[in-house]
């Protein structure tokens, strides 16, 4: 096994993959990419690995993957045969994929809001903030409902890659000015995520809590 991750320390999508590597207890060689301000991922040789010019990129032997959510699904299927992180049971599998889609679509606004706040990327601040709040509210409603029926995670009966894909946007929301005040359910859920074996922090997510 020789996993290699092309990553940028401050990128929340790369962080999703780091969370999965930690949860699965996998060793991985990390190649630091100058994404900001260098945009190194848009030039050769990285553009030859991923023609879309995005990060992260995972290389595992002959397999080359982009898109954090796809990488999470791959890692789970490849290295977690028990199906803990990507459940086999159809309903839990469907729910996991539903929230992975949410992480790429609804939470994209949070990603753009953070880039605008931290990296001066162009973006309509108020519009992105309002869409991010709407996404966090949908997550809060779901996790509260789950909590009342005795479940602590987004899909299935235990933590899945959906939780790992959803965690960074919420945990980093103060980077773009959204406090956790209105999300007590997510606050408690993020504490559970932090307690997972192999959990790692990143800049913006305190070591202490």
């Amino acid at each position, binding site marked *: 096994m020789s996993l290699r991750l092309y990553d940028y320390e401050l990128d929340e999508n790369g962080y999703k993959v780091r969370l999965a590597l930690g949860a699965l207890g996998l060793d991985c060689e990390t190649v630091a990419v100058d994404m900001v301000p260098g945009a190194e991922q848009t030039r050769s040789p990285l553009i030859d690995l991923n023609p879309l010019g995005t990060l992260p990129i995972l290389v595992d032997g002959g397999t080359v993957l982009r898109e954090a959510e796809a990488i999470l699904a791959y890692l789970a299927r490849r290295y977690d045969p028990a199906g803990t992180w990507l459940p086999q049971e159809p309903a839990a599998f469907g729910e996991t994929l539903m929230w992975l889609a949410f992480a790429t679509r609804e939470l994209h606004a949070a990603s753009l809001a953070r880039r605008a706040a931290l990296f001066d990327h162009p973006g309509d601040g108020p519009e992105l903030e309002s869409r991010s709040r709407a996404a966090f509210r949908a997550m809060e409603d779901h996790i*509260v409902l789950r909590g*009342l029926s005795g479940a602590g995670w987004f899909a299935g009966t235990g933590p899945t890659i959906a939780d790992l894909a959803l965690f960074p946007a919420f945990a980093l929301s103060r980077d773009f000015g959204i406090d956790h005040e209105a*999300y*007590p359910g997510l*606050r408690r859920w993020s*504490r559970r995520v932090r307690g997972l074996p192999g959990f790692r922090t990143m800049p913006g997510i305190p070591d*202490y809590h």
Partner: protein
Amino acid sequence: MDEPDGWYAVALGADIEPSTSAGTRLFGHELVVWRDAAGAVHVWEDRCPHRGMRLSFGFVRGDHIACLYHGWRYDAAGQCRFIPAHPDLAVSPMIRTRTFPCRERAGLIWVRWGSPADDAPEAAPDEAAPVSPLRSLYLDAPAARLAAALGGTGSDGLARLDLAGSPVLVAVQPLAAAASAAHIVVPAAPEAPTADLARLAAACITLRRTIEGAAP
């Protein structure tokens, strides 16, 4: 905005777990609500006197809360007791943060704001009456509109609401001019069937939509 003296609920007790903290607001003033390892709750101004960092970003150890910036530690009375950069220093009694009287009742954490004439909420619900926490609902709507939709609150600070056919108790928290929270508990045994709570939680979402959509 108007800041009437009184007791205000700022969280469901169950949402502030031992050794955790959370930031909130009352009339736009930032507060930290935290619970120490022994289970006692504290409500303070959410500001470290050192550099103004929000203490709700910090961490609880035992019966102290520490600031995330430089680790200054405050005891349950709001007095700074330890400064990691100066471990041998006897910390000045001047270094303290503003604390507010608070208490837990009816499954909620209440803070006293100003000097209310009566030290309410004293009345019902009975301290011993069991409640189940339902949820805190955060609304993009002024507290007055929320309170009006609930039909007004009793002298104990709680509104009685029929939610999808079940009685619930609601406390209104004015967060800021256009934001409020409804802390909702169900007067029932803690072992109430969960399906019922889930049904009520769904009704909460409808309630929020109605209030936020109502004309100001």
